[in-house]
């Protein structure tokens, strides 16, 4: 498409050579390590082919780790998508003062990168046993959060913490999509007598749907692979799959590296699927939102 008339005469062998470093890097530091684990998960310790490792993923301890990880990721992805949608909608289409939008975008850029261990510290200082909110609730409202069954080191505690980077990520990704909603569509539907609800039901949501669903899947993968926040928050007390894999690498807790490989393979499959569908949906949504 960009091959000009002058260029066609001078093919450049250098171009291929120039790509060698990139592909060599990709093979050495991405493809080979991943392939090693994938192949290893189909081998026993003697190197023979086996499906035994995958079968052993279905023991209760590992299965429950996957299940908790999937639930936390799903909860934080769906809540993050929902709240992020409303926040982005309010900033883009909600008739708020003009300064709010750039402020929100900048803050979202910061918060979506404020993950890991510092985020865990922040939530410990907020909702931990001696956290400010816990203390405020107990002192001024006589409400003991922890006696009421809340625990930061639990499913909901972790989900609440993950939302701190999930919501901003949704805002960042969805804002351009909301910008892509053309004003003419709304005007046309209003002229044709459509109500606000009908406009959303039949025009806006069908156009936004791939972006919303796709981003939700991206958020899912995002929290599924997270280790540091959970580790700093709960140590190894919460049995999620990344923590289990971390413990396996550190201390061989499964007493079999090949079972560890299978654990990693399971993670690649889950994040790969959700990211793959995300990319597919994103390509679809680009049809409308140019």
């Amino acid at each position, binding site marked *: 498409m960009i091959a000009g008339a002058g260029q066609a005469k001078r093919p450049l062998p250098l*171009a291929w050579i120039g790509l060698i470093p990139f592909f060599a890097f990709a093979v050495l530091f991405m493809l080979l390590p991943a392939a090693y684990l994938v192949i290893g998960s189909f081998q026993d310790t003697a190197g023979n082919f086996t499906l035994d490792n995958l079968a052993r993923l279905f023991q209760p301890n590992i299965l429950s780790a996957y299940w908790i990880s999937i639930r936390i990721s799903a909860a934080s992805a769906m809540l993050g998508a929902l709240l992020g949608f409303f926040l982005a909608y309010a900033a883009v289409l909600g*008739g708020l003062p003009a300064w709010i939008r750039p402020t929100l975008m900048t803050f979202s*850029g910061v918060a979506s990168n404020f993950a890991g*261990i*510092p985020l865990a*510290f922040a939530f410990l200082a*907020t909702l931990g046993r001696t*956290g400010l909110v816990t203390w405020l609730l107990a002192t001024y409202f006589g409400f003991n959060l922890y006696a009421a069954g809340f625990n930061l080191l639990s499913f909901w505690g972790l989900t609440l913490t993950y939302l701190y980077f999930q919501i901003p990520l949704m805002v960042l990704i969805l804002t351009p999509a909301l910008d892509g909603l053309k004003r003419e569509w709304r005007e046309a539907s209003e002229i044709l007598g459509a109500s606000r609800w009908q406009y959303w039901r039949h025009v806006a949501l069908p156009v936004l749907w791939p972006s919303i669903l796709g981003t939700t899947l991206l958020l899912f993968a995002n929290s599924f692979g997270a280790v540091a926040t959970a580790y700093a928050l709960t140590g190894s007390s919460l049995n999620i799959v990344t923590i289990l894999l971390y413990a396996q690498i550190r201390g061989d807790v499964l007493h079999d590296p090949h079972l560890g490989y299978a654990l990693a393979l399971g*993670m690649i499959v889950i994040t790969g699927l959700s990211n793959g569908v995300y*990319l597919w949906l994103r390509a679809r949504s680009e049809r409308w939102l140019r």
Partner: protein
Amino acid sequence: MKGSRFGSWLAFAIGTLYFLVPLISTLEFSMRMRRGEYSFEAYRVVLQDPRFQQSFLYSTTLALATIAIGVLLVLPTAYIIRLRLPKLRPIVEFITLLPLVVPAIVIVFGYLRIYNSSSWLPFTASAWATDLLLTFGYVTLSLPYMYRAVDSGLRAIDVRTLTEAAESLGAGWPTILFKVILPNVRSGILSGAFLTFAIVIGEFVFASLLNRPAFGPYLQLVGANRAYEPAALAIIAFLVTWACMGLIQVFGRGPRSARPSL
């Protein structure tokens, strides 16, 4: 959209509350180290801790090395793809998205298995080789962001005309790449660089599993053993992240352009 403004304000208010309360709590908590009064004691203790200085310096050095290697790897590739081999674009884009598909902990697990001290490429046999492996790991983590930042920078300029103009003036490939193209995509590269910096400074899994004295493992150690210092460190980390994003705003087109696939 008459009655909807209330809903917008409500969403904005709830969002503000959710995002500010943890920051305020952390700040308040970090200043409670001295009994009965607010002070910056925790910050003083943290900043004077030699392990803080060492680990922060270590991570900063690695971040700079990561950025340098990342640019050297990504700039020629994105340039060649754009100018000469657009057919390979989907493959290269797919590769640069891989670090988002394969979780970091899985990648480092692979490193530990392939490059252990008795392997064909014993990266973990000595400290400096492990540092190198860690840096390559960080380049991998930052690849999706770096590639998109540089690529969108290239999209904004007329690569073909610049290249032909430089060629007709007798410039060689290194000159074209580093004296003509590089200055023109500087803002894109800087966006990628600051995002990379933010990622590397806070990274925990790679450094921890490769046993290197980086800032992330130091944070984890302090978090497990101290009360007030972690809150001070969280505030410092937040400020560093904020500074990186602010610099992206200054030099580039906002953090949005540096994020992948938006």
